């Protein structure tokens, strides 16, 4: 499914370029990020919703190509990306079951994006047109295929270098997802097994 492609293209890319941007200002300086870990809360807003949907979780990233994106509430699911392989698991009746109802053919693209951002080549990104105003960064997809899903992404940088306050993914009229991060740690030791299995 393209949704997973878009998600994996966005999520790691949301965290890592901000680290580079926050550290380097407008003249982007590479920041060697080997690993990142943070908690997040996610608000899903839709035009039809009276109240937003709230999810919580954490993510782990380890360069060059390992990601664990885990929701802990209101249900438990894990997206794993390890050495170019993507899998998705959902906890059912106390055990994780792999959700195979998706295509995972976009990892090469994703990996290219991640490695580019890790090297501080954020403004050279082929996927997004990027503008910055102070602590606010706005990304607009260049690819029309992606623009079907995402109209723009707004990043809010923290006053503290290397930290990100929030990410807002705009999908269209009245539909957006806001990720708010907390408890970020850079380059923590991460067990490689966390990227291999839920």
């Amino acid at each position: 499914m393209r949704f997973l492609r878009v998600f994996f293209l966005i999520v790691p890319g949301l965290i890592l370029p901000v680290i580079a941007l926050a550290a380097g200002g407008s003249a982007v300086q590479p920041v060697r990020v080997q690993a990142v870990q943070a908690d997040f809360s996610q608000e899903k807003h839709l035009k039809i919703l009276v109240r937003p949907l709230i999810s919580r979780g954490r993510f782990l990233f380890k360069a060059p190509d390992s990601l664990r994106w885990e929701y802990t509430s209101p249900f438990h699911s894990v997206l794993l990306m390890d050495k170019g392989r993507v899998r998705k698991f959902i906890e059912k009746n106390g055990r994780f079951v792999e959700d195979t109802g998706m295509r995972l053919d976009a990892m090469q693209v994703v990996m290219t994006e991640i490695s580019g951002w890790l090297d501080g080549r954020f403004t050279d990104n082929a996927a997004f047109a990027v503008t910055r105003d102070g602590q606010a960064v706005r990304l607009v997809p260049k690819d029309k295929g992606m623009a079907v899903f995402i109209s723009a992404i707004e990043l809010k940088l923290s006053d503290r270098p290397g930290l990100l306050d929030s990410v807002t993914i705009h999908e269209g009229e009245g539909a957006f997802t806001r990720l708010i991060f907390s408890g970020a740690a850079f380059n923590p030791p991460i067990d490689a097994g966390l990227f291999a299995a839920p």
Partner: protein
Amino acid sequence: MRSCCAALLLLVLCACTASGPPGLDDPRACADSRNCASAFPRGSWQFVHLIEFSLADGAGGTVIGVTVLDGQTIKCALTTTEGMTLFEAESAGSLKVLRAVSPFDKPGFAQGLLADVRTIFVRPQAAPLCGMLDEGQSVCRYRNKSGITDVMSTEDGCPRITTWTAAGLPDRTITAHDCSLNHGYQLARSLVLQAVGKGGYILKMKLLRAQQGM
């Protein structure tokens, strides 16, 4: 012998697929029946479910389903488990699709989804009749131009809803599990919807959140 077997098989198949609802013994009007009323929510609600779907062709997956009920207005949405919007629509008499990405933009999908939502959450527009089936189970039956809806109770007190089309063909069956009375509604922690027919599918729905009086 072979032709007899074929004829018998055809007879059995016909009996199974187009039998219509079973007959009701001692039918009586029961508009105020608590069992009838508690099968469907009243007032304004917002439900969020984790939905595991299985299609007849073997395909399947998991999505999040959102249903908002407010008077005669029904709003519904599907998102990925990560929150990306797949489908969004509302119906206040007429259906208006606000967003639908492939493959959720196929003809008939929105109507089918709305029919699922109506079957699960919306009391049919008809005065119910209560009666007994041959097996001795009490049933609350709604009949209108759209078809027939039977509401029964499972052994654990949850509603089981069965619908037939106006032509008497089996349509959908919904079985609720792990219910508790909430504002007069038998709120189920999980539901299984089975749509029969050529494009049959199964939805296993786990309640994530229910909010009343939005």
